[in-house]
């Protein structure tokens, strides 16, 4: 038993060394190992922000599997580049800037035909929330309708709506990310919602 424990310990040590090398290569900095402390600290940030990062990315790409991949990329990059963040207070804006860039990068590479294929799978899971059947159906209709109409908004408005409702950021944080003023964010949200209302009314939708 002792022999096998030692063997496995050695194996784990080798793997840890390999990981350290991988990270150092990614950073192009002198080799440093991934400590448990680094992982734990980052794990807390991950845990805290994962749901909203996921919701934001999903709000932008509307595909679960792609969203999970993008979110994984976002946190990988955030971990690797975290040392470059000067102010810890700016972490949220910085994280969502990475997310925003990753989404943009995805859209540059995305082949539209591949997307429609995957939407149905998510549909079931997304709407599998604990509500009464009637309430669930009604809410599903509202959300579906709204989602369709949102897609018709200009990209910048979609972006700001997603940062507001999916990422649940403050107007100041959004302003930092999209490089505008807080006033502009407030007005953009207002205008975007007004367009949605007008379009919902045009197609006979109800908000109540």
């Amino acid at each position, binding site marked *: *038993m*002792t022999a*096998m*424990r030692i063997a*496995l*310990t050695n194996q*784990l*040590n080798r*793997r*840890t060394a*390999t*990981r350290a*090398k*991988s*990270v150092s290569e990614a950073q192009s900095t002198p080799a440093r190992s*991934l400590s*448990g402390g680094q*992982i*734990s600290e980052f*794990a807390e940030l*991950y*845990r805290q922000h*994962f*749901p909203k990062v*996921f*919701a934001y990315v999903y*709000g932008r790409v509307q595909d679960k599997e792609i*969203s*999970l991949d993008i*979110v*994984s990329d976002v*946190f*990988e990059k955030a971990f690797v580049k975290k040392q470059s963040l000067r102010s810890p207070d700016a972490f949220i804006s910085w994280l969502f800037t990475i997310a925003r860039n990753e989404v943009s990068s995805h859209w540059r590479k995305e082949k539209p035909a591949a997307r429609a294929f995957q939407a*149905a*799978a998510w549909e*079931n*899971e*997304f*709407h599998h*929330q604990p509500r009464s059947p009637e309430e669930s159906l009604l*809410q599903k209709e509202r*959300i579906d309708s*709204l*989602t369709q109409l949102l897609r018709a908004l200009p990209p910048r408005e979609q972006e700001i709506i997603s940062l*507001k*409702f*999916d990422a*649940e950021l*403050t*107007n100041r944080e959004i302003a930092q990310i999209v490089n505008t003023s807080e*006033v502009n964010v*407030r*007005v953009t*949200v*207002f*205008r975007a*919602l007004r367009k*949605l*209302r007008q379009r919902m009314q045009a197609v006979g939708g109800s*908000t109540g």
Partner: protein
Amino acid sequence: MKGRERANKLARAIDDLLQGCRPDKFDDEELEELLQIAGIRLDAARSAAHVGAQHEGMVWRQVLDRLQGEEASEPVWGANDPSVAQARWGRLWLRIHPGRSTRLLGSHQPRSGVFEPGGHRWRKLAVAGAVVALFLAAIGPIPATGLADHPAVQFARFVGEHVGVSETAAPPAVPAAADIVGGSDVTADQAAELLGLSVLKPTSVPPGFRQVAAKYFPRALTASEGGVFLLAYATDGGVETANSPTILIYQEHASGTDIAVLQGSILDLTLSDGTPATLVEGSWRTSGGQIVWGEDGAQSLVFERAGLRVTIYNAGEPPLNPAYLQTIAEGMIGVATP
């Protein structure tokens, strides 16, 4: 009211909504409807966040694996192929939640040859004799010090995501021989005294099973202190062949190392009282002189409560529906021997 003023008013109400407060009703019909639309959009976002949260652990492991450069490991275990791990996880999920869509979990199937079907399975010993060795064989050797310092394990503990279990891409080393540790017959009260902890007893077991042993072993499975209390259950045929159905319930201190299992073999559950638990499907076994992870019907449910780690292990044919393991665990939570 000017446009900007109305935008500010709406912005404040939306911020209230995001904070979970119910904003005051607007006198302005348009603003009221805009706020309702905002509410629907927020509901959609939170639904997405809720469902996304179910994948939090999987994505974290992916991030960690990439950061730690494990993708280039040897492919023989199949653990480095995300589609294999995902498919395995998907099947496990469906066994617990048969009503959910399989497409959500990806459509990949395991590659042939990844799981070697013919290899020698660990020889099962009589329950009365060497159950600790049997269990060690089933879950793989636990390193004395290695995993405790491993970042992945630290994270698993930190997040509390997989109770007492951490995933690994590589199998443990081949053991030369398993230690045999003798146990003695005890009552639950005696076991509690020996362990220095209250132990739990199931209120029910699946139909056809009966208790065949209650033993205390002086060496723990994963704990750094104390021994382990074992309750063994078998069907009327007893533990006579390698495929005889068995339920083994181990109770030890919730300390020391986690149980190493193959990536993609675990599913996080929550017991009825909110206690987190981890279900593991499969076990390590030998094949061609190496240890491989076999989806051979063996399954374990691990949870921790009041300083006690409980591992409910089932193997044999036919395998139990894992819901039974959850039922056993929930029965145990209700009855504690002081």
